[in-house]
Every structure is written in C-alpha cells, then in structure tokens.
C-alpha cells in the first residue's frame, strides 16, 4: 500500500508539473462548455425575415410586430413584389419570407380565417423546418390573443409538449455529450501517453525490475487519472448548473457512479493502447483517431444514430461513449433511476471487462 501511495504521489508530480497536461485537464472542460454553451448552438435566433405585406392593415401590422419582438426573427426588409423576394433570396442572407395576402385583416374579422404564405430557403432543411415551426407558434399565439373566436385552419390541432426540455435549449443535449468527450479524451489519451512515456524514457524497465508488481504499476498509473477525471466531472456539472442553468434532475450520486464506471472503461482502453504501442506519438494518434472520432460520431450527441445505415448503427454499440451519453442524459435531464439504465450499465461493464482481460494478457506476453 505504501508502495502504491509513493507511486501515486509521483504521478501527481508529473501531472502538476506539465503545463500542457494541466491545460488539457482543467482548461478543456471549461473551454468546451463555453464554446458549446455560447458560441455553437443549434438554436436558431435572429434569422433575417423578409415581409411582403399586401394587406397593410391593422391585423397584419400586429402580426409583423409579434414576429419582430420575438427573439427568433429580425425583419430585414419590407418588399413590394414577389420578384423582389426572389432577388433578395438570391443574395443569400434571407432565410424566410412571409407573404401576407391583401385581405388578411378583413378575412380574419369576417370569416374567422385567413391564409399566410411562407417561402423558405430550404438549402438548409433543418433550419427551414425550425423557422417554420417558430412562425407557426407565433401565429397561434397571435390568434389566441387577438381573435379568440377564430377557428384553427385545421380540424386536428396537435397539442405539443416538449418533455424534459420545453424551451428546446441546446444545453440538455450537449452537456452530456461534452462530458463523454472530455472523459474519453483525458482518460484514454492521458493514461496511454503517460504509460508509454515511461517505456520511451526507459523508466518502465527500472519499474519492472523493482519488486513492485507490474499489474500495480499499471493500476497506479491509471488511478490518479480516475481522481482527476472526477474533478472534471464536478467542474462540468458546476458550470452547467450555475452557468447554463441546467439543473440535475436525477440522483447526483448515481451520476457520479455511472461517470466512475465510464472513467474506468476509458482507463482500461488507455491501458490497452499503452500496452500495444511504444511511442507517445502513436499512442496519441490512436487515442485521437481511434477513440475521439468514434466518440464524436457515434455517441448520438452530434448525429442521430437512428438515421445511420444499419452497419454503422451496429458499430455504434461498441462505442462506450454512446452508452455513457445515454445514461448521463437519462439521469441528468430525464431524472431516470438506475433501473431504467441497467442495459447501458451492463454494456459498459462488459466492454471494460473484455478490454482489461485483453490488456492483461498482452502485457504478460510482453513480459515473457
């Protein structure tokens, strides 16, 4: 035990004396949360809107005002003809045009119904659909406030409730994603690199000649990263709760428990990489290309797995971050209990066991 502690203390010296490592360790989570929270966002705000108002009446003016005061649109220009609409679209800045027909106000007043036309730039289909939805919501709002007697244009009006994330914010999606990515990066890459560094420097030989058991060498190299990763989990959670106002719905201890499990999975992958490689560069490349990229692609955080071709969907199942992402989302956003996440837990335990068995076998072969 004392040997183990001496070793762990030495590992902390390594980490704390290397500025680059320190930055990756503690700067990265903050930077990522800030970037995803404030710079990158799939919420569409302040889109430029073109208005062709043929009605020029009180009702249409009110509606345009409603659109303008919402955060979603900015009236770029008021035009007088269809050809002008098309011209402006070709210039490229405009996402959406709203055409209000001549008798809009009087139709509403007398027939209790009226029509509007929306023209979209559908070269980006997701944005186009999102903008249409925003306009629909604003129009419904406008009707309800000003013409309570107006009939809805369609007989069936779905009452939509956005569960878990009523404002359709990005944070509930990306915070779990960032956690999965950061932990993957730190645990896999840093563990692999720090073990391989000992091989490169020749100190590994000295360690193996010592009475300190080889398996303990590996364990005590991985252990500090477990602690540091938990510090990271904490800092990401603090940032998301206090900076992004994203409350933790589920049990926080469970969140830490599944994070610890995922960290152990990543550490064992890092150990496997370190057993298989002999240079820091190779270890780093494998960690980045072989681990970070799949984590990004297949966790479901950026691209929906359901839309992928079947072979890729199958592959996504062996990517640990996918399962961790599902669990964090479940616990943090939906407030699920462990009973709903048994399958995910099982998969991670399984992957960890397999990876550890392979690395221990390979490690022994190298020693013989």
């Amino acid at each position, binding site marked *: 035990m*004392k*040997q183990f*502690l*001496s*070793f762990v*203390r*030495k590992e902390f*010296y*390594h980490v704390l*004396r*290397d500025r680059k490592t320190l930055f990756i360790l503690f700067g990265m989570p903050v930077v990522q949360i800030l970037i995803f929270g404030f710079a990158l966002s799939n919420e569409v705000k302040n889109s430029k809107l073109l208005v062709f108002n043929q009605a020029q009446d009180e009702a249409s003016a009110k509606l345009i005002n409603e659109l303008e005061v919402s955060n979603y649109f900015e009236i770029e220009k008021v035009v007088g003809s269809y050809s002008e609409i098309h011209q402006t679209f070709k210039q490229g800045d405009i996402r959406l045009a709203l055409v209000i027909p001549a008798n809009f106000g009087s139709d509403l007043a007398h027939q209790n119904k009226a029509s509007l036309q929306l023209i979209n730039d559908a070269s980006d289909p997701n944005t186009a659909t999102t903008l249409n939805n925003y306009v629909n919501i604003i129009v419904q709002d406008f009707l309800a406030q000003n013409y309570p007697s107006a009939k809805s244009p369609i007989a069936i009006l779905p009452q939509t409730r956005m569960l878990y994330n009523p404002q359709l914010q990005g944070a509930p999606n990306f915070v779990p994603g960032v956690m999965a990515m950061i932990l993957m990066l730190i645990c896999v890459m840093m563990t692999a690199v720090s073990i391989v560094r000992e091989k490169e*420097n*020749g*100190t590994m*030989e*000295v*360690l*193996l*000649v*010592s*009475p*300190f058991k080889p398996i303990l060498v590996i364990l005590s190299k991985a252990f500090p990263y477990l602690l540091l990763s938990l510090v990271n989990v904490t800092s990401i959670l603090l940032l998301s709760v206090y900076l992004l106002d994203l409350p933790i719905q589920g049990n926080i201890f469970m969140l830490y428990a599944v994070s610890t499990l995922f960290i152990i999975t990543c550490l064992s992958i890092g150990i496997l990489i370190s057993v298989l490689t002999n240079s820091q560069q190779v270890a780093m490349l494998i960690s980045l290309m072989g681990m970070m990229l799949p984590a990004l692609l297949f966790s479901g955080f950026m691209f929906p797995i359901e839309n992928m071709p079947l072979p890729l969907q199958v592959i996504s199942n062996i990517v640990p971050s996918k399962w961790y992402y599902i669990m964090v989302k479940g616990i943090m956003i939906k407030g699920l209990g462990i009973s709903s996440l048994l399958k995910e837990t099982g998969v991670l335990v399984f992957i960890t066991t397999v990876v550890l068995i392979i690395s221990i076998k390979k490690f022994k072969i190298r*020693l*013989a």
Partner: protein
Amino acid sequence: MKEQVIIADKLSKRFGQFMATNQISFSVSAGEIFGFLGANGAGKTTAMRMLCGLSIPSEGSASVAGFDVYTQTEEIKKNIGYMSQRFSLYEDLTVLENIRFFGGIYGLSDLQIKEKSDALIQQLGLEKEAKKLVAALPLGWRQKLSFSVAILHDPKIVFLDEPTGGVDPLTRRQFWDMIYAAADRGVTIFVTTHYMDEAEYCDRISIMVDGKIDAMGTPAELKKQFDAQNMDEVFYQLARGAKRKE
C-alpha cells in the same frame, strides 16, 4: 571460496528459430565486479533480462542471490538493483523526490528513506541541488545519482547496463570509484560496457559472441590467452569472428 551469488548453467533464450542466448554458463561470487562484454546484438541484454527476472529462460538453469530465475523472480527483484543504459530517473521530479519514490517502491520506511537520502546527498555533494529538478543536473551527476538510487535498498547484486554511455572520462573515473566502493561493501556488480578501459577495471570479464560466451577470465588472463597488449585487442579478435550483425 566465496559465496556464488549468480550461477548460470547452460542458460538459453530462444525467440522462434533465433537463439538470442545460447547455453551460457558462468558464476559470479559475492563482492566481485563482473564485466559482461559483447558487441551489440551478441545477447548481453537478453541474458541480463533473464537474470533480472524480466524474461523467462527457454532452457538451462540459473539462480540469482540464491533464488531460481524460473520460479522466484519476485524474491530476485527484492535483492537486486538495476540501472539501465538509458537514463532511468524522472527528469521532472527533484533529486529528493526521485530518491523518495524509488525508496518507496522498494518498500523502505519513511525513516529509512530520510536517513538514506540525507547520507546520499551529502556523499554526492548535492546539498544545493537536492530540491532542483533532475533535468537541471549535468549528465554525469545524473548517472552517479542513478547508481546511488539503484543501490538505495542495499541489494546484494546490482546490474548495470552500459551505465557510462555518453559520460566524460573524468566522470567515468569517478563513477568507477563509486562502483569500487560498493563492491568493497560486498555488493556484487554485474556490468556491461563498450569501453575496454572499463573492462580493465573489472575483477573478471566474459565476452559474448553470437549468443555464446567465447572467453572468460581476469583481464590479465585474457590478455595472456589471446596474446594481446590490451583488452581492445582481445575484444577485436573475438568480435571479428561474429556472424551476427546489429
């Protein structure tokens, strides 16, 4: 006759078809400085790894400090020290931290580590550098420190794998003074080297060629046997016949 601390009998290591070490037999007695010579690729490192318990032999038998290399590698590791040709301290740790770390993994108590590191630092004259990073020390000092750390836990035998590579002659001389001092205390020294003047410092040497030990004896005996002026010539005569290249 002194106690034999290393005994190898027809010790062999095969990698596939390749006999890295081919039936080598020798013994080293306590307190002896045994030079283990050979060209690159002759099989020195493989032999040394087997004796250190890092590699299981294919055939033959050997014991180190009275323990069997097949079954008692853990016991062997407790009784040997090791310093490799590559620099084997942590450069981003201070002198004291290195000593404390290696003392720690060899299971020394805090008190022992404290006493040993005080003595060691005084002996090496490193009082001012004790709290400096090892990276800031000149190479020669690092090598001396490295050797002191390798014998920190009072091993019976210390294995030195080309310990003086890249070190200036004066420091090498001082390094050998440290080796003699350790040998006088009864520590057995098993050393590989490419410097033939260092071979002369050894009590006894063996020269490996192509996985076999082709010559063994005191430097004087070998020079007489090969009718040579110095060890350089002895080595050259033997190594010239080698078929293996690097």
